[in-house]
């Protein structure tokens, strides 16, 4: 009796998971709270940050729009607005190249969210910032923006 019962239990555990496939809980594109990516966030250069995120190749695009002040008087709070017109944008990353730790944020978008974000960051000095968009096809895209900073925010 006993072995039969084990088989039955194993079988039912697998079939319990099956209905989840359709609900979105096990869907690959669903936003999940991933653990904080220490390697990428502690990288001291944009290049090392991109490497830690496994982003080897970036194609420059006009389909990511980065809005920011040309001159930021206070580097402690600079508004950066990013929106992507690339179809199936899954996530946006923001790098401030000359900050001690360039990677500022990574944002992943669920189905109902538009690939848009306004975020406030500190800038150490005048620099180029870059926004990276990752699309569902696995490609990575980038757009740049120069910002002059009057008072350092770091």
């Amino acid at each position: 009796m006993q072995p039969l019962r084990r088989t039955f239990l194993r079988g039912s555990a697998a079939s319990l998971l099956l209905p989840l496939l359709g609900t979105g809980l096990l869907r690959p594109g669903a936003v999940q709270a991933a653990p904080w990516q220490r390697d990428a966030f502690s990288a001291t250069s944009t290049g090392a940050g991109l490497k830690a995120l496994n982003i080897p190749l970036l194609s420059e695009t006009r389909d990511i729009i980065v809005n920011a002040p040309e001159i930021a008087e206070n580097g402690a709070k600079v508004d950066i607005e990013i929106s992507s017109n690339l179809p199936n944008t899954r996530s946006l990353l923001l790098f401030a190249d000359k900050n001690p730790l360039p990677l500022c944020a990574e944002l992943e978008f669920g189905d109902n969210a538009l690939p848009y974000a306004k975020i406030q960051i500190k800038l150490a000095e005048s620099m180029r910032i870059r926004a990276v968009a990752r699309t569902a096809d696995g490609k990575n895209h980038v757009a740049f923006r120069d910002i002059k900073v009057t008072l350092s925010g770091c």
Partner: protein
Amino acid sequence: MSEPLRIRVQRQGEGAEIRILMPHPMENGLRRDDAGKLVAVHYIQTFTLKQNDRPLISGQLNTSVSRNPLFVFKARQIKSGDTLSVHWTDNKGAARQDAIKVE
């Protein structure tokens, strides 16, 4: 105890603009206090914005995000009666969650 998050929704047709203020010191570990001592690094590392129980935005942040940062996001299909919640965790292990109901 941290200050409550402030979540504001402005509906725009079928969608909405969601503004989130996250009160937090966001110390980058480089600043000195009045006595000249370095202030310990203290910042939000992860946050999730959910519509009812479905994640809309999942974010990871670094020390370079401003103190008490304001975020603006956009979403479609935000209905009256929906619950929008934001949950964050910081590098010291603290966490906070607040929610609002869309009018």
